[in-house]
């Protein structure tokens, strides 16, 4: 027999490997990576044009506008999460690698969040200011979006793994994922709204953090199960 005992890489090593690979891929086609961010900026800039340029009015709707736009941008980004890998056969290689698929997919989702979720978090205060949001709300806005987009990425990844073998599955993906994302939207927008009125925001922030922990701990297993079903066809 050939060497049947191979030193398999540890879990941390695999995480770094997937991160390095996907970041490198993102650099090679950065135009696709930027799309959700551009979408987010354009959608939020449309509101002053459509509603009213008066800051008082915009300020009232700004938490909701920012959150809905962030949610749709993260949904838009999901299309590029697993599909390219499934189409060129590299996902099949991962399924057969003998390594925990849940971890591989979680690492991939994390990289995806760094590339599509984190830019939204960083951009949101600037966009918020354009909608008349006071500077004092910036930390809360960034915190809710950081926690919230994380949850959206994991939930979205489960849906993306389920629908990846479906041709033009993006509508199905939206139908599947958006209802599940409602709690994140509600608590996220609520926390920003409370902060704008100078009220304590610990409640909804804690709930957002709890949701994120819940999704990150159980989501990867759902992703792996869904991906196995998608590859088996």
């Amino acid at each position, binding site marked *: 027999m050939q060497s049947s005992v*191979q030193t398999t890489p540890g879990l941390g090593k695999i995480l770094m*490997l997937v991160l390095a690979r996907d970041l490198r891929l993102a650099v*090679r086609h950065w135009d696709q990576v930027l799309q959700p961010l551009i979408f987010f900026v354009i959608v939020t800039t449309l509101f002053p044009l459509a509603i009213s340029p008066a800051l008082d009015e915009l300020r009232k709707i700004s938490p909701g506008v920012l959150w809905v736009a962030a949610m749709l941008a993260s949904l838009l980004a999901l299309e590029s999460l697993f599909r390219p890998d499934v189409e*060129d*056969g*590299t996902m099949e*290689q991962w399924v*057969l690698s003998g390594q925990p698929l849940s971890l591989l997919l979680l690492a991939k989702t994390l990289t995806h969040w760094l590339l599509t979720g984190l830019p939204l978090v960083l951009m949101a205060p600037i966009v918020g200011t354009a909608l008349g949001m006071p500077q004092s709300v910036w930390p809360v806005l960034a915190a809710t979006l950081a926690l919230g987009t994380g949850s959206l990425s994991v939930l979205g990844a489960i849906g993306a793994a389920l629908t990846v073998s479906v041709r033009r599955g993006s509508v199905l993906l939206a139908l599947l994922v958006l209802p599940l994302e409602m709690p994140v939207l509600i608590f996220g927008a609520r926390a920003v709204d409370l902060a704008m009125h100078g009220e304590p925001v610990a409640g909804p922030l804690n709930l957002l953090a709890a949701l994120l922990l819940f999704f990150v701990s159980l989501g990867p297993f759902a992703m792996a199960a869904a991906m196995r079903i998608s590859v088996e066809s």
Partner: protein
Amino acid sequence: MLAQVAATSPQPQLEARAVHLWRGEKHLLRGVSFALYSGELLQVVGPNGVGKTSLLRCVAGLLPTESGEIVWQGQQLPEGRDEFHRELAYLAHVNGLKAELTALENLRFGVSVRRAVTTEELRETLQLLHVEACADLPVRALSAGQKRRVALARIMLTRASLWILDEPITNLDKAGIALFEARIAEHMRTGGMILTAAHQLLLQGQPGVRTLELR
């Protein structure tokens, strides 16, 4: 010499017992059975659409069988699936390469998921298949045959004992086929096993080479 020892050893490494598979309305695999011993090459032959790829995917664990058993080293899959997959290198119709990455990057990421590997080792393997000049080119820029050679280099680098290859020599020229046959013979000599779906038989008439005909 190892192959002869293997051929007489009573314990098959990989065994399929009465595998049935339906694809939609079609009863594709009707009780397919085979046994694969250390140092053997088994080539699945048959007309298009007879289920060669499906059989290979069933064995690899990418398709659930309707009934029947796939047994690896005495253990019925999917039990011990991860150990089996660590001993398995699978090459599909698609090469499993990222077009944006270079051949070397593709190999590094493809192999490092399974084991630690050095750049020299990657380059040496590319050299064995005469594609060392492509090492630093994005795979997008390679010809179909060169891509296939890079994909085969990945199979060789995984150090798996079982290779499952779906029409491995697609797009390869004569020289490429000869190179690859030599690698297969080497793999068999060291006790490895190969299961292929093929239209063109490899290493015909050599010891340890068998065919399985699907009807």
